[in-house]
């Protein structure tokens, strides 16, 4: 589905990402974790095509997509950025409808089918009651839900999430990730996400990739990554690892 082969990125002789290789299989949910400035967001931008790689290559669906048009790519890949949607005075409905854009030809009107898909997604994300509200009247959490709905309407095969929960309270954090999880189970979507919260990463991801100073430190299950020694080396603090009493996965205490 997604394959990075010896990817490096250098800007003004400063190495942001160096020789990173990993694969994400179809239907997996993989988490990218690491301290601030580790190069996680840069890596996401290299994958989404916002930045060009300096060396190595990024293969999506087995192909180098550099020459794909924006539209063609957006038909198969949705991206949720850290900043999310600007608080622009546009209704929730019209914003979610924009997700259909890559599937429409230039100046083609939305069909009844498009309208149905939007209604369906609004229902799935619990936005039906908010659909006539303007984006700038919503809270940050609600706006992030709109962003996910828009990505969902895009009907991608791969979803890239760059810290989708960073400005949200714990209620919205789990809500956003539960929506993504349910979506994944429904459609077999592949997800790659950057997460700051290691406990959430352990709960929602099948596999974790730990990055530091532009390089992969370790990848594997949450049990492999969330150990005191590994985290201590990267985060310069000594967390305690405990077991989640119900889900039987490692969780950290500070």
């Amino acid at each position: 589905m997604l394959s990075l082969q010896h990817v490096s990125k250098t800007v003004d002789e400063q190495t942001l990402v160096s020789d990173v290789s990993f694969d994400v299989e179809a239907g997996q949910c993989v988490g990218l974790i690491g301290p601030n400035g580790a190069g996680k967001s840069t890596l996401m931008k290299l994958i989404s095509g916002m930045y060009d790689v300096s060396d190595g290559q990024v293969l999506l669906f087995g192909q180098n997509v550099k020459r794909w048009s924006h539209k063609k790519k957006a038909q198969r890949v949705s991206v949720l950025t850290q900043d999310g949607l600007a608080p622009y005075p546009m209704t929730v409905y019209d914003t979610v409808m924009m997700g259909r854009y890559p599937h429409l030809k230039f100046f083609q009107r939305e069909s009844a089918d498009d309208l149905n898909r939007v209604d369906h997604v609004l229902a799935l994300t619990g936005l039906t009651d908010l659909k006539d509200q303007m984006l700038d009247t919503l809270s940050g959490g609600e706006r992030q839900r709109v962003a996910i709905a828009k990505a969902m309407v895009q009907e991608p095969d791969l979803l890239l999430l760059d810290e989708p929960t960073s400005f949200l309270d714990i209620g919205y954090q789990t809500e956003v990730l539960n929506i993504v999880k349910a979506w994944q189970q429904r459609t077999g979507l592949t997800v790659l996400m950057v997460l700051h919260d290691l406990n959430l990463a352990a709960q929602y991801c099948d596999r974790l990739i730990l990055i530091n100073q532009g390089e992969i430190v370790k990848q594997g299950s949450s049990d492999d990554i969330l150990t005191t020694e590994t985290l201590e080396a990267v985060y310069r603090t000594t967390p305690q690892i405990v077991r989640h009493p119900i889900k039987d996965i490692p969780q950290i205490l500070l």
Partner: protein
Amino acid sequence: MMAKRSTLWLTIIGLLIGLLILMVLSISLGSAQISFTTVWRVILSHVPVMGEWIERDWPDSTATIVLDLRMPRILLASVVGAALALAGALYQGVLRNPLADPFILGVSSGASFGAAMTFVFGIQMVWIGQMTLPVVAFICGFATLMVVYSIARIGQKVRMETIILAGVVVQAFLGACLSLVMSLANEKLQTIVFWMMGSLTLTDWSYNAVVLPVIALTAIVAMMFTRELNMLGLGEEVAHHSGVSVERTRFILLILASLMTGAAVAVSGAIGFVGLVVPHMIRLIVGSDYRMILPLSIIGGALFLVGADTLARVSLAPRELPLGVITAFLGAPFFIYLLRQAKREYF
């Protein structure tokens, strides 16, 4: 959604009827008063089929005033107003800056400089005759945009903040060049100053014939980008990831807006305020959806400028006021009123 679309069309039809009435009213006003119904009958008598039913009981001079003096001017006012307002809306949308107007990237400064040179040196190209002035102005305006764009381009990307700064700098530089030309101009000074204030006095049908196709064509193409403009509003990255080719869309829209502006400025001088205020008024009334802003700006700009030009002609008749003065006098207070009424951030 569907309801919104039909409301939009009803509004557009209503406003177009209003525009038509205003234009006919404007034709009937002036130093020679012609009744509203006579104007209608003179115009309709030239419509095929319908013309045969109308008895031509007016003097020839009336027909001349209506058809050859006032109509071309008022038509041009509506076209220029529409072009400036649409260009303003496009610049504001693409540059994501509420202060943007059709002149922000130096198009009008370039055109004014070209026009001033034409006046001072008496340039006259034989094969285009009296069209020399608008053609030179248009070319200079467009060349200025190209200079600004290439200054702001770094690699493949053009940052919107950079292009605004480049525009401001080039504008200031051309302003200085213009001052230089004017200080050397002597007896032509008054012509240049009058042209720069914006005026539709020298209009005849040939201006319409040249400008109307340019503006109509660019406007039609621009209208196809409403969806992309809305997506740019949600943020550059969001638009990019939704499949919009951000750089290309911006480039095309800036070119279109500048072509419109160049064409409008070339025939009427730099008429201020229309392109800044009309799109804002529309935005304050209908919100930020460019599917509504663009068509309504076109009609709003036409209404605004026809109204302003009428006032410029009749308020101190027989003396004619500069059009730019009227647009500012009308636009500023109404805009301030709307701004105070707006309950939340709207841009």
